[in-house]
């Protein structure tokens, strides 16, 4: 730049350009940065699938959800989601009656089994879902009812 004035003007133009580009993707940025806020705000399985761009889920005996029949402490409920099927892209864990249904999304890469265990909080007795999103677009799920003696959302 020949003069300070030109340099300042150029950088101001650049900043405006970036600002313009940056305003739009509060959404896109959330996605790009690896966390899908919309999906985690969704209130039901259907809404979650919409947020994740998945088809309507179909029950399948090839997907397994493991969870206790009765959870004494809703703050710590062990759940597992697994499937032996090939071609799984993602495994999801949902707790239907929680304030937000989606608990976790696991991206199933080629180096890991489609088999994950974790612990979730359950606010009340509810169905727990394991959902497999397949690379061919199918969405399969299994669910299990878990009774909770003491709710886990602190209320």
């Amino acid at each position, binding site marked *: 730049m020949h003069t300070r004035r030109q340099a300042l003007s150029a950088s101001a133009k650049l900043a405006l350009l970036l600002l313009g580009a940056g305003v739009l993707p509060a959404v896109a940025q959330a996605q790009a940065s*690896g966390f*899908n806020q919309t999906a*985690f705000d969704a209130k039901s399985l259907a809404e979650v699938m919409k947020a994740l761009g998945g088809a309507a889920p179909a029950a399948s005996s090839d997907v397994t959800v493991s969870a206790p029949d009765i959870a004494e402490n809703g703050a710590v409920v062990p759940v597992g989601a697994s499937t032996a099927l090939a071609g799984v892209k993602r495994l999801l864990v949902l707790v239907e009656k929680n304030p937000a249904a989606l608990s*976790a999304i696991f991206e199933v890469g080629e*180096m890991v*089994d489609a*088999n*994950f265990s974790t612990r979730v*909080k359950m606010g009340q007795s509810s169905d727990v879902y394991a959902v497999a999103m397949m690379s061919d677009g199918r969405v399969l799920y299994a669910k299990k009812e878990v009774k909770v003696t003491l709710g886990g*959302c602190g209320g």
Partner: protein
Amino acid sequence: MADPMRIRAQASGDKATVRVLMAHEMETGQRKDAAGKVIPAWYIQQVHAKLNGKDVLSAQWGPAVAKNPFLQFMIKGAKAGDKVSVSWVDNRGDTRTDEAVVT
């Protein structure tokens, strides 16, 4: 800085079972403190795992994952001596990475 994660990775056959216990409050944002003010949400949003530096797993978590989260998964083709690293990022932007060797 958060407490370290405890990672155990055990090889069995051609897979390693990895169990991780992370130290994190996983606050849902639903609770209120004694004064009635909402305790803000504070929870791990992303988890990544690598085997010998190569990405093997990524996960997104919501606040419904229990406090001090537990995670178990299986890595194919891992053998004793391989290095497993697990990292998390929470909604405040804090992050933590810990490593373990497959036994």
